[in-house]
């Protein structure tokens, strides 16, 4: 599904250079729930941005379904993103000026030819248990509800890959559980998920674990689902 080779991103502020991601190799197979664990500043979100084509790598390549996205134009990467990738951010990422249902239908604007957009959006809202909040504005929702709407929106274009950047970072324990259970269900239905988090407690949901520190990635943890060995905290 995704294959990153020798992926490097260097940020420069004129005086010094920061190697945010350093020669990363990563392979995510269809149906996997890959989780990248790391502290703040470890480079995991930059890696996620490059995987989605939102950040141009300094060197290396990213292939999504065999297509090298670093060779694509902005239009083609955007089209690929609209078609293949659903995003969930740490913050709700909902537009506050439009209703919940409009937020869900927004991605269809970038995926021309989609039909039954409203019907599908209402179905997804039902799926996340918020069908009665379709006409509400995001500001009137709880943080858990906003997150569920954001997940529903990420699924609105029927992507094959869900990318989540610290999706439970600002949630309480109960809501975190609720959201992670939703991810587990989606993964159970065949959705490929790549998620970054700094919270080792969430490792049990993943089928593949990576650790990231100072821009370097290593596969070193195993999910409880696989039953391979104990979970160890990152250092």
């Amino acid at each position, binding site marked *: 599904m995704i294959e990153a080779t020798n992926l490097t991103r260097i940020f420069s502020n004129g005086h010094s250079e920061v190697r945010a991601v350093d020669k990363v190799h990563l392979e995510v197979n269809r149906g996997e729930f890959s989780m990248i664990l790391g502290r703040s500043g470890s480079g995991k*979100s*930059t890696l*996620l*941005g490059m995987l*989605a084509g*939102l*950040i141009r790598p300094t060197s290396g390549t990213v292939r999504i379904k065999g297509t090298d996205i670093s060779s694509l134009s*902005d*239009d083609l990467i*955007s*089209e690929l*993103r*609209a*078609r293949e*990738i659903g*995003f969930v*951010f*740490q*913050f*709700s*990422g*909902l*537009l*506050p*000026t*439009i209703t919940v249902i*409009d937020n869900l*239908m*927004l*991605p*269809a*604007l*970038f*995926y021309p030819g*989609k*039909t*039954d*957009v*409203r019907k599908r959006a209402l179905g997804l809202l039902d799926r996340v248990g918020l069908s009665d909040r379709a006409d509400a504005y995001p500001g009137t929702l709880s943080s858990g509800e906003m997150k569920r709407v954001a997940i529903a*929106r990420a699924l609105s*274009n029927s992507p094959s890959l869900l990318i989540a*950047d610290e999706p439970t970072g600002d949630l309480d324990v109960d809501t975190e559980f609720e959201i992670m259970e939703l991810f587990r269900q989606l993964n159970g239905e065949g959705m490929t998920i790549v998620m970054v988090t700094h919270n080792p407690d969430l490792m049990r949901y993943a089928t593949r674990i990576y650790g990231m520190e100072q821009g370097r990635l290593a596969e070193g943890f195993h999910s409880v689902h696989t039953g391979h060995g104990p979970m160890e905290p990152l250092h």
Partner: protein
Amino acid sequence: MGDPGAFTFSRLIRRNLANRLYRNIATIFVFALIAATFFSAQFLLNGAEQSLDKGMSRMGADILVLPEENAMAGQNILLTGQPTSFFFADSGFERISNIPGVAEASPEIFIATLFASCCAAPVQMIAIDPENDFTVSPWLAENAGVKLGQDDIIIGSNIIQNVGKDLMFYGHNFHVVGILDPTGMGVDNSVFTRIEDAYVMAAESDTKAVRKLTIPEGKVSAVLVRVEPGVSPSTVATRVEEEIPGTETILPDGLLSAVKGQMVAMTTLLYGSALAVTIIAIPLIGVVSAMVAHERRREVALLRALGATRRFVIRVMLAESFVLAIIGSLMGIGAAAGFLIIYQDYITYTLQVPLIIPSALTLLAGGAISLFLAFGIAGVSSLYPAYLIIHSEPFDIIRKGGV
């Protein structure tokens, strides 16, 4: 066929604009100001030119011959109908008819009336000879059945009276038989009667009017001249001035130049204001747009993450800017047109220039130019926000703060 109920581009634009209502109202106001000033400048210039064309066409003459010392007053009668009375020192009428190149000559007598029931101020009475007149006669020809008989008058469009009713000047009762179409020039504020009726009115004024009117026997105020086909009016005008000392000739082109000269200050002011507003507006709207773009960089980053291309985001910015430009321009053009039409008479009086409401085509063209200008400003002022969008790193922005 679209997907019913789906979220559309236009809905996104509407929601975005509604969300920043007060700032958008300020931007709309700036666009309205730009469009209004440009539209006003064009309205006044075209209105004056079309008024002159119509007025000169109504006059029907190639040359107007006036006493040298009253040339300015005569010009004012033509342009604004500012009432005055004057006469040639001697009758040059017969001699003008005999000048080579003159095809027809028609005398007119200018009489400033006293206050009359029709009008808030004295009006200009123009006494003509229906036998060889070419100011009112063409109108009479177009309006079959109307004759300028004894004690009849034909009135300009600004004179308030109906056909069939009477108007009294110098104690003499006149019967209104026709109302001329508006021209925006002095004709609109004038009444036309026969020369012999003017003499009767003057003779009666001693006993009937509060002030006696004197019209020197055999004297005229102006002579309208038509030149022979193929003859240059300016050549004939020069001959008239040479052969009859004490005369000054006015040609339509000269009048147009004079009016344009009178309007230079006004048009310079209007176009200068419009230019100044534009020069200020571009960076102003640009800064406002940049502020909005800066505020919205997370929203933009989110759209990008959802699959929006840079082009789409720029299209959103431009569409919002153009919608504001359209709304502002239409409001500005509407307000300016309303003001200029309602206060047309006041403007004519204040600026001392002829003015008519320009033709619908001219108004549309003026509106289109103003709209086009506002579009240009909207486009130019969106360049910097577009640059910000193109050079933003969306993912980094989303991570640093919530949308």
